[in-house]
């Protein structure tokens, strides 16, 4: 049963609504911000920084880069975070909630709590020049039906930003700005499209592989693998190799031993392909080999090859693979001639 909250009707009602009162940029169009911008953008066009250069191409002086359009009305990170926080906690009073805030809240309530910007298009009516005061007015332009995307299910929302130049002033109420904007010259627009979505549930992470039973007799083998070595136990009395590890030598009864480090080369003595049961720690079909090492013992190990290609007698070479911090294993692949 789909119990998802559906705000389709309320959202549709928001489309076309102006979002709150217009906002005025905190700074007039100024040379310092332009210099930082072109520096960061790597834009060497003299018309943004050199009055003489600007006049040479017929301008009346320095102009602001058109792509700075939104930069002139940005309020800064702290203020943005405070507003986002108020919206998320629901502490913004309804009277203070703009259409854009309402839209975001409704989308959150629908479960579309994640956001990603998908498109940003700007249109410029004319360039901005030094000393101009920019104001912006937001309008909800479009909210899509629920769509399923690669990121998850959600809605696309497009907000249109209309930018105006109004007479400079340090103190102005929201309604006063609105009054100015009503009769102001529009100098550009921006359409900003986002996807608000519920992240697709990730498939459960693969659980780690089972660990071996490590005892004082076999710890050297498992520790060796963690150090990237395939160690094979050797009787120091008669030199017989043995695997899996044991405390004594069946050939000469000596309890003294050390190990050699195998070169990891050998051939497939036998093999299986596991199809069932399928344990989540592994990928199936799962080829496993019994490898006869050139040094003379056998070892059971995973095979890095197509199960159908595995043949008894095939030459293989081990690599030591760390599956996680606690487990490293030799994995054998065919030797290509």
């Amino acid at each position, binding site marked *: 049963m789909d119990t998802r909250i559906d705000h389709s009707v309320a959202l549709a009602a928001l489309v076309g609504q102006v979002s709150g009162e217009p906002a005025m940029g905190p700074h007039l169009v100024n040379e310092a911000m332009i210099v930082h911008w072109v520096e960061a953008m790597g834009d060497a066009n003299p018309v943004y920084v050199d009055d003489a250069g600007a006049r040479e191409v017929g301008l009346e002086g320095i102009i602001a880069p058109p792509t700075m359009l939104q930069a002139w009305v940005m309020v800064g990170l702290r203020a943005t975070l405070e507003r986002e926080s108020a919206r998320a906690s629901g502490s913004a009073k309804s009277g203070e909630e703009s259409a854009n805030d309402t839209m975001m809240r409704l989308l959150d309530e629908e479960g579309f709590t994640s956001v990603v910007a998908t498109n940003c298009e700007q249109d410029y009516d004319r360039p901005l020049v030094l000393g101009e005061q920019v104001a912006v007015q937001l309008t909800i332009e479009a909210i899509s039906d629920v769509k399923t995307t690669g990121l998850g299910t959600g809605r696309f929302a497009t907000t249109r930003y209309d930018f105006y130049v109004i007479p400079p002033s340090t103190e102005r109420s929201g309604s006063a700005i609105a009054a100015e904007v009503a009769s102001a010259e529009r100098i550009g627009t921006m359409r900003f499209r986002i996807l608000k979505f519920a992240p697709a549930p990730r498939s459960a992470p693969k659980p780690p592989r089972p*660990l071996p039973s490590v005892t004082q007799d076999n710890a050297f083998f498992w520790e060796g693998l963690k150090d990237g070595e395939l160690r094979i136990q050797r009787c120091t009395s008669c030199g017989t190799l043995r695997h899996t590890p044991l405390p004594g030598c069946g050939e000469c009864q000596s309890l003294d031993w050390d190990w050699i480090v195998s070169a990891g080369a050998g051939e497939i003595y*036998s*093999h299986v392909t*596991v199809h069932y049961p399928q344990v989540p720690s592994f990928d199936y079909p799962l080829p496993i080999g019994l490898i006869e090492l050139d040094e003379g013992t056998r070892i*059971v190990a995973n095979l890095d090859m197509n199960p159908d290609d595995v043949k008894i007698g095939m030459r293989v070479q081990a690599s030591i693979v760390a599956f996680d911090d606690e487990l490293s294993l030799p994995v054998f692949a065919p030797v290509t001639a």
Partner: protein
Amino acid sequence: MSSHRFAGEVAIVGIGATEFSKASGRSELRLATEAVKAAIADAGITPDQVGGMVTYSSETNPDVDIARALGIGDLTFFSRIHYGGGAACATVQQAALAVDAGVADYVVCYRAFNERSGNRFGAGVQGRAPIANAEMAHLGSYMPVGLLTPASWVAMAAQRYMHVTGTTSADLANIAIADRKHAATNPKAWFYEQPITLEDHQASRWIVEPLRLLDCCQETDGAQAIVVTSLERARDLPNAPAVIRAAAQGSGKGQDMMTSYYRDDLCGLPEMAVVGEQLWGTSGLGPADMDAAILYDHFSPYVLYQLEELGFCGKGEAKDFIKDGRIEHGGALPLNLHGGQLGEAYLHGMNGIAEGVRQVRGTAVNQVEGLDRIVVTAGTGVPTSGLVLSSDA
């Protein structure tokens, strides 16, 4: 040539089992209690006469619980045997030894589990970190690789055997076809009236290549119990005794639990040769004297190995030996006449012993006419055991 003193002096006199199902609906202890009760009744004795109890170390039902539940009195002998299904015939051997030694007069052997509805062996060994001890250290070394199940452990040896001997998957099918043919006429069998063809076998899905679903035994809920006493006492009881001509355990060179992968070759089960040598040496009988055989069949390939190790055919010849109906009812060496563990039920080999007893008594559903001697084996790939049973002639 070995000669065990108890051989020929002891007998199986009672058998009892529950139904064999996929969901018993009752506790394993209840199943064990029912089977032991039935076996005691079949033997024609009373619970207070039972002086010994033997089971597997993998059994979850304590002998003393069953004893209390059934009014079994003082126990003077109780023991458990290791290595899974390898314990089957060894329970009877231990009972025989105790009886022959005068330690107990009547000994009950039993095995009970909800192996299908409860803890499934086929689900594989699971969990991140096994216990750190020597018993887990060996088998535990295969867990990180994903070799987790009995089928996978057997398949690794079988692939080599098939490569060396030229045995094919279609050859293995002969084991499953014979088992299912016998189960088809055994009302107690899970696969009663469900024989299979070669095509069915070849179409069944891979479990672990080279083993298909129909190469693998069932998973079963159920219980089986067996009563052992001296032949002398047996002669006064209602059922014809199944005389224990030989009973033996065996572990071979390079022995591991299920994964003896470091032996000179993987085409034999040296532990079964150790068992066979004792069985034939003690009984004075040989493969040619057997009228039928119950060979442990958790996975089909190891039946071929056993035929070779017990001397029914030469090394590498089993694939031809099992052709043309030789191992089916009416053939020269009918195998697993109850349907085996592929067809009747997987009771860790104990149901096979019961079938051996029925064949000797002459009461089996797929009775071999005039049967006098039968060999029964226990779990393979592990230290194992075997029996030769005969009539009291």
